[in-house]
């Protein structure tokens, strides 16, 4: 079920109403059943895949907790292998098989293994990582193994974050399922406001910009350098609003019922540096990599800078692979990692802060980081590596030609309008946080804010029910 569908609005209203009507002891069951329904609305049979990982990790958690040190590690490995195995099979089998076929072909051999045709279970990378974080935390002793199977299943399946995160940690969420939740007006309204802003980002900004981006990226050979550059920058805003919009709807939906999910985006473009952007981007995924992959590696590397930089690049390549089984994602990850390393080296060696004021450092950092990361997301969006290289070449050589305005050309101005609205709001939220509209203490201003957002959504939102980009991961 897509968040941006009428069906979801109905689903949310029914589930939330029932949640508050039912006594506390039945609420977990309601949430679990509704989460199953939510998931099965996509491809019903894949609930079995999800069910398998839930059963494996549930028992793995208990066995890890009960067992002596050596065996604990064995059970953890078993659980990780099961999770990665499923992820690998569904997500990476065809990719690796295609690459093997390509290499064998170079030596005039034929790969006897053929590709398998299936649809990727929706949100597989998200719930696999969430399930893994449970067994790792139990292993580390930060979380007690959950004995109630239903609650554990709900931890993995909680519908707001089931298919596109935030990737939760068990310490943050499991205990909340045991806490009785009251209907609190302020909290419910706060949740609804987050949902409203999430819908705005998705319908008004992301889906609007996608019209231009898709038109350009689906036929890159037809477009000039400036068009491709503009489409690439628009894509950066699009993917941000698409994903953070989803996260906002997820966080808001959970908040209405009294559950606090972790923050997933913190105005990344205001990060002031390439590393700053990634520190504020998809926080639940990058903190996952930091906590479970980078930190253990960095501990071993001690202060060996070369190794540490290597690990940064490695983590970003992994994150690229996490996003998708394609070379474009791997290149995107490698590029992002390398750009962070270069930036860090530059800041350490040149120390630009000596020559430029803090304010200018921040402004220039924001602009510079935006352009550097825009180029990285070109690989993220391109349909193939050859397309990405063509686009890159066209941008850097400023391939001549007209600036594509889309069709009808007048609608071109919508793209700028929605981008400017987004930038203004983010600037206010980041640098002038005391100026508020929908959180203003005066009711008249708050209502003006709600009405303005809804009116803009109705007038220039795109209601074609397009999928969220991150669903495919």
């Amino acid at each position, binding site marked *: 079920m897509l968040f941006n569908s009428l069906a979801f609005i109905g689903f949310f209203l029914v589930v939330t109403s029932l949640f*508050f009507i039912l006594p506390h002891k039945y609420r977990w069951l309601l949430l679990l059943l509704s989460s199953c329904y939510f998931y099965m609305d996509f491809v019903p049979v894949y609930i079995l895949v999800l069910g398998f990982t839930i059963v494996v990790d549930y028992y793995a958690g208990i066995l890890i907790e009960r067992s002596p040190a050596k065996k604990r590690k064995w059970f953890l490995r078993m659980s990780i292998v099961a999770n990665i195995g499923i992820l690998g099979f569904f997500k990476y089998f065809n990719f690796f098989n295609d690459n093997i076929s390509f290499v064998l072909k170079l030596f005039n051999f034929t790969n006897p293994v053929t590709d398998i045709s299936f649809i990727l279970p929706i949100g597989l990378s998200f719930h696999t990582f969430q399930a893994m974080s449970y067994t790792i935390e139990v292993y580390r002793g930060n979380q007690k193994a959950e004995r109630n199977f239903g609650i554990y299943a709900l931890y993995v399946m909680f519908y707001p974050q089931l298919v596109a995160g935030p990737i939760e940690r068990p310490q943050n969420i499991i205990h909340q399922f045991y806490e009785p939740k*009251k209907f609190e007006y302020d909290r419910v309204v706060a949740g609804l406001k987050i949902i409203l802003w999430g819908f705005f980002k998705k319908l008004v900004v992301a889906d609007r910009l996608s019209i231009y981006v898709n038109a350009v990226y689906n036929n890159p050979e037809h477009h000039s350098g400036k068009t491709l550059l503009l489409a690439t920058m628009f894509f950066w805003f699009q993917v941000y609003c698409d994903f953070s919009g989803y996260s906002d709807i997820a966080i808001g939906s959970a908040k209405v019922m009294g559950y606090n999910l972790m923050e997933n985006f913190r105005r990344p473009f205001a990060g002031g540096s390439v590393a700053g952007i990634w520190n504020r981007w998809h926080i639940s995924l990058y903190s996952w990599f930091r906590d479970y992959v980078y930190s253990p590696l960095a501990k071993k590397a001690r202060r060996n800078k070369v190794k540490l930089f290597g690990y940064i690049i490695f983590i970003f390549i992994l994150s690229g692979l996490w996003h998708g089984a394609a070379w474009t994602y791997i290149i995107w990850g490698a590029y992002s990692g390398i750009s962070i390393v270069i930036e860090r080296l530059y800041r350490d060696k040149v120390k630009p802060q000596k020559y430029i004021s803090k304010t200018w450092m921040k402004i220039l950092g924001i602009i510079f980081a935006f352009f550097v990361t825009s180029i990285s997301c070109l690989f993220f969006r391109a349909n193939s590596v050859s397309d990405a290289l063509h686009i890159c070449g066209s941008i850097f050589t400023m391939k001549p030609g*007209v600036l594509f305005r889309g*069709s*009808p050309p007048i609608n071109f101005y919508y793209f700028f309008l929605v981008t400017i609205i987004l930038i203004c709001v983010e600037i206010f939220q980041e640098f002038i946080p005391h100026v508020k509209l929908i959180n203003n203490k005066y009711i008249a201003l708050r209502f003006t804010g709600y009405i303005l957002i809804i*009116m803009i959504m109705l007038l220039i939102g795109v*209601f074609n029910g397009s999928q969220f980009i991150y669903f495919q991961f």
Partner: protein
Amino acid sequence: MTKEEVKQVARLFKKLFILLVFLFILDRLIGTALENAYKDAPQGDIKTFAHSITNPVENIFIYGSSRAVHGYDTRIFTDSLGLSCFNCGRENSNILYHTVILNEMLKKHSPEIIILDVSARELTWRAAENSKSVLASMILPYVRRDTSFANIARKLFPDEFFKTRVSKIYAYNSLILPLLAGRKEALSIKNINGYEPIDGNKVAGKLPGFTDENKETDLVAKKSFEEFVKTVKENDIMLYVIQSPLYVKRFSSSVSLDTIKTILKKYNQPFWDYGFDTALTKKEYFYDNLHLNTRGASLFTEKLVSDIKADLERKKPSLLN
């Protein structure tokens, strides 16, 4: 639920009710203002669409996408054939759109000639699903005041129909700028009975490809195309299905064009292909690789009109008198 919780729920509903009342009032007020602006649109896509379905009077009607809008000079048809002409082509549209507006037009008026411009991706590229959004944006404003459009919307895009019934301004989603632009366009003569000339030449670099090899035909689009041809023939109207000039890599086959030709054959209808006409496929006649500029449109229309004239002299000379 405790008493305190019930009180808080009531507070929420009260606030939501107030918000909905404000929204409803504003929706109706702004919606009515937009409705009036839409009805009076002096130029542009909206005017073209409105004219094609509410006030069609011309002898010749031209259908097609942006290639039709910029490639068929209506003045030349009128001057050479002595028949009035209207170009109801629409940017980004495809056969689904044309079929719907054709059927609406025929309820009010039966022209003498219909020209349909098709492309090598007509039934595959902007397939029916994509064209629905263009169609929806044009039809939704009529849903509240015209039952036949309400029925079309209910059938083709039920969700959009429902949203339009709930919100009046939703029907004008994405139309604010075109409405404003239509007013601006009215000041310049850029729209001549639907024909929109474009000056200049932006063709650069290698010739791009423009075919749909290995793509599947969209069944809805295919059905719409057949319906279009059948409807025109049943109404005893002269039909010309045309591929206008392109400045792209020459292609030998196209799934769309092959399907179109097969359907046309079934109705004993020829296909006129000017796609790679050597006299017309010159760089200087194009604005970009797919669209003729003013000069190109003029030359192409002259050639087309002379061919049509010759055809009419053989088949329906009464039209030329």
